[in-house]
């Protein structure tokens, strides 16, 4: 079930992400997935696009798989075939002053890839 998987992975992700300077707004991170890629989106809770930041992609066991920069439109694309996603992925976005994460579960990938 998605919820249990996400909660278990969230504990790892939350432990890895140390809280940094809290602002009046939060960083909202979301990642959608299809058969080809994970598309990461980041914006602030006031609606402004996050124009720069680092994206870290980890596997379900919290091993770093790859890093890439956030594009100026607040997105980043991670090709699925470039990472081992069998156990799900944790996508972290860190702007230096804000950070947050989104968990892509194996069920998310299966559901959106039609398998």
């Amino acid at each position, binding site marked *: 079930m*998605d919820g249990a998987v996400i*909660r278990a992975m969230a504990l790892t992700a939350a432990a890895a992400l140390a809280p940094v300077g809290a602002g009046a707004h939060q960083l909202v991170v979301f990642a*959608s997935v299809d058969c080809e890629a994970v598309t990461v989106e980041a914006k602030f809770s006031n*609606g402004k696009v996050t124009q720069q930041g680092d994206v870290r992609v980890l596997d379900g066991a919290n091993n770093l798989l790859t890093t890439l920069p956030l594009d100026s439109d607040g997105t980043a694309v991670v090709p699925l075939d470039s990472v081992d996603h069998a156990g799900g992925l944790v996508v972290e976005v860190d702007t230096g002053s804000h950070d947050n994460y*989104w968990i892509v579960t194996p069920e998310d990938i299966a*559901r959106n890839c039609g398998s």
Partner: protein
Amino acid sequence: MKHHFLTASLAAMIAATPAVAHYGMIIPNDPMISQEDGRSVSLTMSFSHPFEMDGMMLDKPVAFSVTHEGNKTDLLGGLQDATVMDDQGYTLEYPLDRPGTYIFAMEPQPYWEPAEDAFIIHYTKTYVTAYGDDEGWDTELGLKTEIVPLSKPFGLWEHNVFQGIVKMDGAPVPYAEVEVEFLNDGAGATAPDELMITQTVKADADGVFTYAPPSDGWWGFAALNTADYTLPQDGEDKAVELGAVIWVHFEEWTGR
């Protein structure tokens, strides 16, 4: 303060008396869905007396929809029959594919209420936010009558005020009456006086009303106005009460 609680006999009399506070209801399992909660929201729809937990028949609605990022989706065909408060209601499991605020809205069939010699139509809505993104929380749907939130309609602490604008045909309704009632589901709330089952506040000249609940939980706000049209019943034209209903959840304060 001395409280005079309703006696059993008085409560029985009230139960036998036609109740006045009907509420259309859309209650999600959680108004703030995080990624840890899963990827969908569970909704329960009813037509009820929420404080007394007394259900009424909710016929298949005329319309049921969700609006997200300005896009409206018809969900009427997805409603599942369910028993809610011992009467006919509906449930729906809805996938939340993206972050943001999802506004679920229901237009019921006109409900004939002989005791009021009028029909009742409650345009009912509830706001659900997904994945930490509250964008769209102040969305106005453009319903026939509607409470447009001025306070974010989720993420409120108990005792916070909730403010909204009562609108009819898109225009504020000056001094509109707004009935407020608690969904007394497992809370065990009792009313020292029947006047406190349903509380009433009035909007100001701009249609703005304010209310602060005494506890956490789901609170329903119903702004009631008479329609500018009638409907036939037994060969006569009857008045139609239009309700703008919004359900808002207040969270328990976690500090001391």
